[in-house]
């Protein structure tokens, strides 16, 4: 179908974007890569909207080495996650996630910020930032705000971002020697949304495991994490019964999802064991 938009303006910089957003009347959306937004517009799911294009806002583009942390600008494209040397070195989970996201043509436009703000529970990056215990950075008329990934995802396509805030970037703690990252997913075809996926990060022996495709938001499997910390994979798989309550849809039943979540947990754990020391 043909998209409908009542108006368009391009933001020159972050302050301009925030001012435009604050002053806008009616249903107004920020557009960056547009890979999710334009698809929704084409399906006429968005109604009468006007667009603020933040795709060229310089402040959102940089990846900055902050010593112990890495600050990744919201406009970092999915393609860049796999090639930016800082991300590859210090946040490899994101680099590993990149090739799983859709296809090259989508990755050339889609952005980290866009994916996180869209908050599709079947997407890779929201689960990754939970696994990384990242901090999301937002900016609005009231200034900057730091939001823990665990607090960011509120519901289906719903985040903690206020209507007048712009997601400006993500801050992750750099990995250190001995840390492990694994992302695995089950999708019927390469590039499809995952039926179930797992993003796992081990930091100084402690695990953070976030599943995607199992609920309205990426789910941190806390009991399973505890068991993994104790080195008990069987207990971790069993703990998923309490951690996860997956939905039933045309892609899979709850039982199927619960079962394969366990399979993925085993495979992720085995993968982390197999990774060499360094």
């Amino acid at each position, binding site marked *: *179908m*043909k998209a*409908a938009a009542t108006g368009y303006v391009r933001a020159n910089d972050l302050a301009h974007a925030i001012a435009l957003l604050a002053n806008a009347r009616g249903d107004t959306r920020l557009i960056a890569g547009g890979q999710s937004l334009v698809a929704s517009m084409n*399906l*006429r799911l968005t109604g009468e909207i006007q667009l603020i294009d933040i795709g060229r806002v310089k402040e959102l583009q940089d990846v900055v080495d902050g010593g112990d942390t890495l600050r990744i600008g919201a406009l970092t494209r999915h393609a860049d996650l796999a090639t930016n040397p800082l991300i590859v070195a210090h946040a490899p989970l994101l680099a590993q996630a990149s090739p799983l996201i859709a296809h090259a043509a989508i990755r050339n436009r889609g952005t980290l910020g866009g994916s996180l703000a869209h908050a599709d529970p079947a997407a890779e990056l929201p689960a990754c930032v939970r696994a990384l215990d990242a901090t999301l950075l937002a900016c609005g008329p009231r200034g900057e705000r730091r939001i823990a990934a665990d607090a960011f995802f509120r519901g289906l396509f719903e985040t903690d971002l206020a209507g007048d805030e712009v997601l400006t970037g993500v801050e992750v703690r750099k990995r250190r020697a001995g840390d492990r990252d694994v992302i695995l997913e*089950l999708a*019927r*075809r*390469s*590039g*499809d*949304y995952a*039926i179930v996926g797992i993003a796992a990060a081990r930091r100084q022996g402690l695990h953070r495991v976030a599943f995607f495709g199992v609920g309205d938001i990426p789910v941190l499997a806390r009991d399973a994490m505890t068991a993994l910390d104790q080195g008990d994979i069987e207990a971790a798989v069993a703990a998923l019964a309490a951690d996860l309550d997956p939905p*039933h849809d*045309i892609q*899979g*039943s*709850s*039982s*199927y999802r619960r*079962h*394969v979540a366990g*399979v993925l947990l085993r495979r992720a754990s085995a993968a982390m064991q197999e990774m060499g020391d360094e």
Partner: protein
Amino acid sequence: MTIDFGNPDRPNSYIGRSVPRPNAPRLVEGRGRYVDDIVLPRMLHVAFVRSPHAHARIDGIDAGAALAAAGVRRVFTGEDLREVCTPWVAVLAHLKGLKSAPQHAIAVDRACWVGEAVAAVVADSRAAAEDGAALVDVDYTPLPAVTDMRSALAPDTPVIHPELGDNLAFRRLHEAGDVEGAMASAHKVIKARFKTGRHTGVCLEPRSILADYNRAERTLTVHHSTQAPHMMQTVFAQHLDLPEGKVRVICGDVGGSFGIKVHVYPDEVATAAISRVMGRPIKFIADRVESFSTDIHARDHEIDGTIAVDETGRILAIDIDDWTAIGPYSVYPRTSAIEGNQVVNLCGGPYDFQNYRAQTTVVFQNKTPTCQYRAVGHPIAAAVTEGLVDFAAEALGMDPVEIRRRNLIADDAYPFTAPTNMRFEGLSHHASLDRLLEIMDYEGLRRDQAEARERGVVRGIGIASFIELTNPSPFMYGIGGARISAQDGCTVRMDPDGSIVALSGVTEQGQGTESMLAQVVAEGVGVPIGQVKVITGDTQVTPYGGGTWASRGAGIGGEAALQAGLALRRSILEVAGAMLQAAPDTLDIRDAVVVDMASGGERLPLAEIGRIVYFRGDTLPRDLPRELVQTRHYITSEYPFAFTNGVQASYVEVDPDTGFIRLLKHWCVEDCGRVINPQLVDEQIRGGIVQGIGGALYEECIYDPDGQLVNASMAEYLVPMASEMPDMQIAHVETPTRESTLGAKGAGEAGTAGAPAAVMNAINDALRPLGARVTEMPFTPERILRALGTVAGD
């Protein structure tokens, strides 16, 4: 003259060679001309208001707000269009008992499936038309929807068309021999229930039509993405009350069709009717979302199959009970009963046995209408047959190849009439199986499978024999009263410089029709292939023909082209004979030069003959015929169908933890008679196999109980993409048909016919040691795990 097909060094030998397609270079440059690429002066666009209900009365339509919207020019309802367009009823006399209700171009009074058009908005652009359509206010009273196949005939299920009495569209029972007796005395009787998913074609170019009624000339010109332009010419003429001579249908480049585009769609007829009323070009391009609910669906079947075998593994009887759910209307003009009818006609096809019983029950539903889609009924019949044969082999502890050896019709048993009453002129089941086992290295694969099992890797090999009907005679549709042409024609003409133009009634949708015709004509006339231009898809220009369907292009269209080319050769040689003072039968044409037949010595270039005939006719004998243009039409007469045969194999790996299937490799040996262009045939088979794999593993139109199609998007209706598909090795056996000079049967659908059966058998071969079996397609990972007992399901 006869062509010595066996001699590859014969002159002008194009038949049997893999020459590149003449239309490919423009397509790789983006210079195709698909309907949506065409812009005509004063052209408007139509978008349809479609029912959101599976079944509802239309109480009123208020187009006020729509008409006030920017760019909107007109709004039409079903009542408006019925004044200029008559309804149709899709039945065929030879399908006894088939009944259906009249269907209008736009629904009148009642919408009967989600997506059925209830109004049309005409505007300056598609976007404006969509905006307008969103503003049309339709008052519906929802009615109960009939959406369950098995209860469609139950007494308390509402009848969709009360005047028809019940929801039974068609039922046919066929019996041969004594099935009950055979079952009673059998060594083993095996039953299974199979399900095939409801599919849709997902042609990448959606349905497209640009209808242009010229009021001054009272002519209708339709640019149409269709397989059968002459049939559509007849349909538009009949239903819009125009003489056929005033209707022209043109097919340019068509972006895939697979049978989806050979049917009459109400919204396309509505587009033509709107143009008739408005006197302006009207363009309708179905977008992807509406394609899912308005393109025809197919293959929604549940089949209970039973096979009886003796101790030696000989098949004693096969009993089939097929149920299929169509839409609320039989689709025009080929009807929605053919698919079920084919299941009855095709089960057990490759095998030599006497006792057969098969019934199909075709029921109406408030879902998208269904009709013929690539390999119509064959994938279902082959899956059921080959599945039962494998289960019989399992029950006997016999190798699946061995049981087939014991039952496939012998290669020297022809002509042969099957217990289905299907007549086979000449097939090669055993030779094909031999070749398959050779190219796949069957023993080697069994060793690989065993070795993998020792490592805990679960692999399976599946074999599927099949028959495939091609080159249909009027026995398929014509005898039922449908204006569907089983004959076809070709005009071949020589222009002054020796250029050859061939006009054919069969059409191109990418399979290589134009290349095939160029090869046949080049060889028939005796010219280099670069000198032949082929024109198809224009009813004003080509002989009246049937278009492309049921794999008839090469067998029927190609034969007409060959006959016409040979006839032109004779005409040219008659003139040449007069010019050279030689008997025409001592002359031949090779590489566009008239030569001495015996010595090959060159006598006269065609260009010289052209010059004389067209510009110096005064130098030729007065009564010499000098028509350098010949038309021939061809129709099959001996056999209702030219059956082909093939056998496929699939090697799969099953992940028992996730249920995911990996297709390791696929093989197909196909006997389609004379192969005109090996590369094109192989590629058609490959494309067909992948389409069949789609049905086996991925594709399924999912309806909820209210008749809503819940997965109507490219993200949720899963079609095969490159990463998951295997490499496919293709080989051929050639058993030409003696019905025609060319000897070609058809090949376009064979890949799709046998692939689901081969994949199913491979999966079951893999799962057998784990005690599991699957028979319900598509074989999703979840269905695999449920069969294994790993997952119970909600």
